[in-house]
């Protein structure tokens, strides 16, 4: 390991630890005036489990999204690839809209919050299956075809969601928009949280073990094949792993953008392009980004409650991405 890599890991780890401590310590108390005052203190029961739940959810989702982003950038050989290019976010959104509309039609209370986990997961997996089915050419996943199919699936799912919005009341539309902005649950489903962690851990280990093959696949199809790499199997593995990670993350926290796009670039900037170190570094970067955003948003309340985490990741991630682009840091080629 070169000093640069060691330094990069230390930096990412430090950001994670600071973000974790900040998320666990920052809270707010209501004042007589109706305003809230932000306070830093170590939480006691019954607040502690809520903050641990939020921190755990952010860590798990950040891990999943960062890793999924990296795998997709490798698979599509496109630095703009992120978990949303395969239409998973829109598919999850469609799943949620179908659940809301169905509840309205049969006259039962519409699901909210945790009740949206299953429809979101089903929608994401449904979009994944369609993209997978149509993204193959001669039985092999083709990056360009996959990208195009993903874009079309996303557009179709988005359009269907919009159509369904017309048959639900305004209040439920607001709930849907709220869900689309992402939310880190304070009391997540234990099973879902565990699924995210286990899935992310398994994919991280496997991807690190296969890092040399992944490096080879980045050279191009002909070079990879001439080196004896089974490109079809690798692409299938990358696609399924990225899809499952994204579906799990969306089910847990909703569609949160920019984490999957930026984490691999941040990690590349710090530890370089070799996947043996890039895979774990990206996981740390994803965790640091989402946990950091979740901590920072505790300080920002524009009147309607704390800023949504998905809004903050976009507000911070967009300029950061432009900075990478404009300063030509070598990660966007």
């Amino acid at each position, binding site marked *: 390991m070169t000093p640069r890599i060691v330094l990069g890991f230390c930096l990412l780890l430090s950001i994670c630890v600071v973000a974790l401590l900040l998320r666990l310590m920052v809270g707010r108390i209501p004042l007589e005036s109706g305003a809230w005052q932000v306070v830093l203190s170590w939480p006691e029961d019954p607040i502690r489990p809520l903050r641990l739940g939020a921190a755990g959810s952010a860590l798990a989702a950040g891990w999943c999204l960062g890793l999924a982003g990296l795998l997709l950038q490798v698979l599509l050989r496109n630095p703009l690839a992120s978990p949303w290019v395969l239409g998973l976010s829109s598919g999850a959104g469609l799943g949620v809209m179908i659940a809301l509309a169905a509840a*309205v039609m049969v006259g039962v209370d519409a699901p909210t919050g945790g009740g949206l986990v299953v429809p979101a997961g089903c929608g994401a997996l449904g979009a994944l299956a369609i993209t997978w089915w149509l993204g193959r050419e001669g039985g092999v996943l083709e990056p360009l075809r996959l990208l195009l199919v993903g874009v079309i699936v996303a557009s179709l799912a988005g359009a269907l969601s919009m159509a369904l919005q017309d048959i639900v009341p305004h209040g439920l539309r607001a709930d849907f928009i709220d869900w689309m902005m992402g939310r880190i649950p304070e009391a997540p489903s234990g099973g879902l949280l565990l699924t995210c962690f286990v899935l992310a851990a398994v994919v991280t280990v496997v991807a690190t073990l296969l890092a040399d093959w992944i490096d080879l696949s980045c050279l191009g199809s002909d070079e990879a094949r001439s080196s004896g790499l089974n490109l079809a199997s690798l692409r299938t593995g990358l696609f399924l792993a990225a899809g499952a990670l994204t579906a799990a993350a969306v089910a847990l926290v909703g569609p949160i953008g920019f984490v999957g796009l930026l984490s691999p670039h941040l990690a590349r900037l710090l530890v370089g392009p070799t996947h043996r170190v890039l895979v774990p570094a990206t996981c740390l970067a994803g965790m640091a980004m989402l946990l950091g955003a979740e901590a920072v948003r505790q300080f920002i309340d524009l009147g309607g409650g704390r800023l949504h985490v998905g809004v903050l990741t976009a507000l911070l991630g967009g300029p950061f991405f432009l900075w990478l682009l404009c300063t030509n840091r070598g990660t966007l080629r």
Partner: protein
Amino acid sequence: MRPTTPPDRASAWFPGPTGLRSALLVLVAVAVSAGGGCGQSEQAVAPAPDSGVPRIVSLSPALTQAMIDLGLAHALVGCTPFAPEAANSVPVVGDLLNPDLERILAVDPDLLLVQPTARGVDPALRTLAREQDWDLVDWRIDRLEDVRNILREVPSILGRHGADEQRLQSAVEEWLAQSEAVLTPCPVIRSAGRILVLYGVDPPAGFGTGTYVDDILVRLGGRNALQRPGYPELSLEDLLTLSPDTILVLGDPDRGALLQTRFEPSPASPEVLTVEADALLIPGTRLLEGVRTLRATFGCPPTDIAENGS
């Protein structure tokens, strides 16, 4: 679910458990025929012109309910998709955000009732109303007093369009008298301490100051635990730090039960009450029904007019 659009509106639009098939049929019907709403043709239900009855289009579920409660359901010639059940046969002519100008033109109202959104009344609607010589009345409904003021104005406005102003005046006065009765301070609510009223539990979202529910709570002698304006979204941690004495959840009992599981049972835990009062989610004439349910939930002593619902 945010306030102003209770679930019963939607279920009323999709009667029965026919589910997806019915919805798809409705979608297809709407797509292929530019006219009709709630499965009906406007030609079939719109009262004939010059029949002495005002032709009212209401682009607000709350105002539609008010017209129905004032005995003017037959005067409605257009409403929103999520109108009360009694307006099921009234053509849909768009909603608050997207009024369908062509359909409104087709039903040719005398009077347009609008509850403006944050961006105000659609300028195209205003222009059309001016060109067609329709009376466009826009009312904001944020506070309890807004509801009362609107009702006070209704008889004279509708009287201009041929409605029986005297009868409406009597109906409004009766409603106002009932509202005074049901809003009598209740000692049980006063002693319930700081009360947090939630319209959502996952995520929690509550009625803050400057809302009609806050007004109702104050009139009943209660203290709103959420001393910030509007309808803010909260976190579970916020609920704990606000430490209300009572949490009132509007809607299904399951929602209250879900919230109850978040609190460790201890003497300091707030009491979580669920009020099955969708009427409280719409700032309109049905608020009285909601307040009655609220009083009953707290076990307030009956008020003569309030409890018999006359």
